[in-house]
């Protein structure tokens, strides 16, 4: 196991060797992820870890994939999506063209959930969804859009709780074990690599969706990323965060109006 006082050096090595900056990551989460990676990879001590990072660059993608959390589900938090439909979709419908940024898309569950709801509300054909993640492994998985059937019952319940109109199965082709998302959704979603820590604005988007990503950052980095989202939105654009994330304490707080305080949906007002 690695201890807190050894993290600094690991952060340094990763930055020096690979250009990824984990300085602003929440220390406790970072420590836990590294310990998990070491356990899964059979690295017993910090010396082994350092050796791995320095001498086995071919394993770095797997490392990053384990460090960033890729746990998500379809229609996670139905109340959130319900609120998004009620408060944001009608507004978006008034635009001739809609750009959405799904930041930190991990394996794509949330991005596809949004796309499915867009389709049911007739918004998909005029939308472009930009889905980004720091992990190329996660992006590859997102692009493939293949998911284990194990949790589909829960996903289906979530889907109906969100106000889904059809049946979730119709958007997938399934065999006994896996389901693959219909290709119609893939053509409107552009998956690409973006690092929230170091990369800037790449597109003006009317909706920025970034849920359960900021909790892995310290307050300073949270603030910086929120500023990036602010810069990516036009006035009247919407920002949706995770249930336990907030604009409170951030510099851009007074530039947004709260649309739903429980579901953490905000609208840029200036």
């Amino acid at each position: 196991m690695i201890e807190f006082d050894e993290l600094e050096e690991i952060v340094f090595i990763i930055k020096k060797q690979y250009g990824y900056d984990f300085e602003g990551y929440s220390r406790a989460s970072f420590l836990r992820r590294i310990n998990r990676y070491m356990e899964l990879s059979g690295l017993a001590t910090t010396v082994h870890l350092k050796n791995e990072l320095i001498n086995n660059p071919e394993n770095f993608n797997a490392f990053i994939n384990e460090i960033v959390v890729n746990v998500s589900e379809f229609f996670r938090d139905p109340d959130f999506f319900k609120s998004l439909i009620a408060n944001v979709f009608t507004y978006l419908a008034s635009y001739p063209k809609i750009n959405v940024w799904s930041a930190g898309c991990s394996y794509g569950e949330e991005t596809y959930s949004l796309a499915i709801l867009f389709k049911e509300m007739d918004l998909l054909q005029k939308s472009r969804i930009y889905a980004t993640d720091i992990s190329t492994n996660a992006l590859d998985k997102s692009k493939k859009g293949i998911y284990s059937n194990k949790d589909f019952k829960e996903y289906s319940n979530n889907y109906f709780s969100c106000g889904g109109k059809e049946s979730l199965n119709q958007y997938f082709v399934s065999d006994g074990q896996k389901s693959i998302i219909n290709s119609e959704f893939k053509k409107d979603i552009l998956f690409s690599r973006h690092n929230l820590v170091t990369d800037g604005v790449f597109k003006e988007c009317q909706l920025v969706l970034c849920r359960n990503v900021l909790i892995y950052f310290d307050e300073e980095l949270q603030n910086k990323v929120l500023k990036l989202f602010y810069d990516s939105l036009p006035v009247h654009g919407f920002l949706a965060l995770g249930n336990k994330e907030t604009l409170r304490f951030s510099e851009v707080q007074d530039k947004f109006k709260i649309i739903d305080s429980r579901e953490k949906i905000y609208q840029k007002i200036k």
Partner: protein
Amino acid sequence: MKMIIIGGSAGSFNVILSILKELDADISMPIVIVLHRLKKAKAILEDCLQTQSHYIVKEVEDKEFAKAGYIYTAPSDYHVLLNENLSFSLDTSEEVNYSRPSIDVSFESFSCVLKENCCGILLSGANQDGAIGLKMIAENGGETIVQDGDEAEFATMPRAAIELYKKHTVYKLKDIVKKMNNYAK
């Protein structure tokens, strides 16, 4: 700073209520409660606990600093971790022991930071969450208490902890309270 961290699952809710009711009115050491709860349960847990306590009871907020006089509860569907600067971090990574929040995750994280300055208490439950984390607290020099399996409504969780590490102190409810009052003085 010292902290008390309580882990509980099935059959723990009433035990926690009784504990809080009996705590001395002059103690204020931060207490963190990681209780397995239903994913979609509304947040009435905090309201229930508040009626029994002189502490301020609140759900953990991300990057909030642990303060005296507060009881913090783990939000449903999030793990709770502790940073070196004694602020909390929430985490939605994979479930551990089929649980999120997981008691093991919190015990381990708190122990990493607090070392001997924490007291871990494991109560009734029907799975094995908490055993590995409680052992880590003990090995890092912290105090560890397990609810007596004969008293616990579900003995699986306390017994799993003892099985893994024999040296935990086993107490019945009234002694857990006494111990907490002493520890927090």
